[in-house]
């Protein structure tokens, strides 16, 4: 049994995958195979399931590399002022994302960026006292946020949480940082589902939650939404803790990974190229190229 528990402890399978593995295992168990082959076949099955869902090219980069790029883009994006330079940044990022399993997402964000840029340019010809100030700030904020959101959501989609965990541990971060961070990335998408469920329940009970009501009664909104959400959080924590502990989340030992998690030459190359590219953009911004206006109606 030692072999089996060790292989299960190796990684945290947080992809609802363990369920199917368990089913396979139970079916195999009914046939009364010798225990040794059963363990072997289970390990093979787990490996197969993990390797099955692979990302390609840029999406297969080390999570640390993606995080470094994300931080760099976040630093640069707010200080790029020229319209051409920002467009170059967004287009390059879209290409980078399109290479790695994210064609649709890249196209969507690119179209969104262009539409917002045009609308923002249109705004110069309209002047409503208060609203136009608010809208211009809004537009610029969105334009600055598009590259970061594009990169961030793509990173979340193309990173397995277990790879992230392994790579964070290789950085020698203590458990007190890795576990909350990984849980958080895992939980942010779930929060939206929980929120929708709470809204549905409120609708059923006749306490419908409209935008107007949310503004008029902020305190009751907080109470109606936050308290059930917190209750759910406590529940989810119990479940996650149970499932994580059984899969060896608490272990302090060095983890081994089936996927290739290593900061080798492609990662170095991408990081250096990224830094060079962003530095070049910052430099171009100060030359005359930064002053060209393209969004004109």
């Amino acid at each position: 049994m030692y072999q089996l528990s060790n292989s299960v402890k190796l990684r945290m399978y947080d992809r609802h995958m363990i369920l199917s593995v368990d089913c396979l295992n139970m079916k195999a168990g009914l046939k009364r195979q010798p225990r040794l082959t059963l363990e072997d076949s289970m390990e093979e099955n787990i490996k197969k399931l993990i390797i099955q869902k692979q990302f390609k090219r840029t999406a297969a980069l080390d999570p640390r590399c993606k995080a470094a790029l994300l931080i760099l883009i976040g630093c640069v994006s707010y200080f790029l002022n020229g319209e051409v330079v920002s467009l170059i940044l967004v287009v390059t990022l879209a290409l980078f994302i399109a290479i790695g399993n994210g064609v649709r997402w890249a196209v969507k964000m690119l179209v969104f960026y262009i539409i917002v840029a045009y609308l923002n340019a249109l705004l110069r010809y309209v002047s409503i006292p208060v609203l136009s100030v608010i809208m211009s700030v809004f537009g610029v904020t969105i334009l600055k946020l598009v590259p970061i959101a594009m990169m961030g959501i793509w990173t979340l989609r193309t990173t397995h949480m277990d790879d992230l965990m392994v790579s964070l541990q290789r950085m020698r971060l203590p458990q007190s940082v890795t576990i909350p961070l990984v849980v958080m990335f895992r939980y942010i998408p779930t929060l939206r589902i929980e929120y929708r469920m709470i809204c549905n329940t409120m609708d059923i009970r006749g306490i419908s939650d409209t935008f107007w009501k949310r503004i008029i009664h902020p305190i009751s909104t907080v109470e109606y939404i936050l308290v059930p959400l917190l209750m759910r959080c406590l529940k989810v924590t119990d479940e996650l803790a149970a499932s994580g502990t059984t899969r060896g989340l608490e272990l302090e030992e060095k983890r081994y990974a089936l996927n290739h998690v290593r900061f080798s030459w492609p990662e170095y190359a991408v990081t250096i190229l990224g830094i060079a590219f962003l530095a070049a953009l910052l430099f171009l911004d100060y030359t005359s190229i930064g002053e060209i206006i393209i969004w004109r109606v």
Partner: protein
Amino acid sequence: MNKKLNAKDFILIGVLTALMWIICMIISTVMSIAGPVTNVFYPAVVAIPNGIVMMLLLAKVPKKGVFAICGTIQGILFLLVGGFWLIPVALIIGGVICDFLIMGISEVTMKSMIIAYTIFSGIFAFGAIVGPMSFLRNAFVGAMEKNNIAQEYIDGMIKITSGFMPVVIVAAGLLGGLLGGYIGQKTLKKHFIKAGLVSAK
């Protein structure tokens, strides 16, 4: 009683920090768009709903290190979203100070929870608004002018961060923390302690 944090506590911290961060992002985005005056006071407003979450977290995990971990993770997320580098630094320093000055001395009680949270939110207000605006005003204004942000917004932003305003902003942050902690403990008593989910002194 075991005073060391275990995996379950880490998971709870992760889940609740995710919630706090989402609340913070929504409120800060809405308020920074609405105008310069509201933009400056967003840490104070953020502290009020987050107070409920933080009080629950502290009541559920009354151990050393909760603030520091929470601040560190929020800081990492701010860094990933492209926040100014002073925000993560302020969050981490604030977390460590709150942990080892206040929670370290005595048992975690309702009072020390409120005091710790108040100081934490004051430091956050300093790191998020006062620090960047006083150190990097020229770069900030230059970036805003080039981006076609309306002149009124820039003028308002400068006016509201000069003179005595930094003190007012930090004070508002402290007040927001106090109010958030108070409301949070009321909510805690009304919903969570009654239901038997947490027990606090």
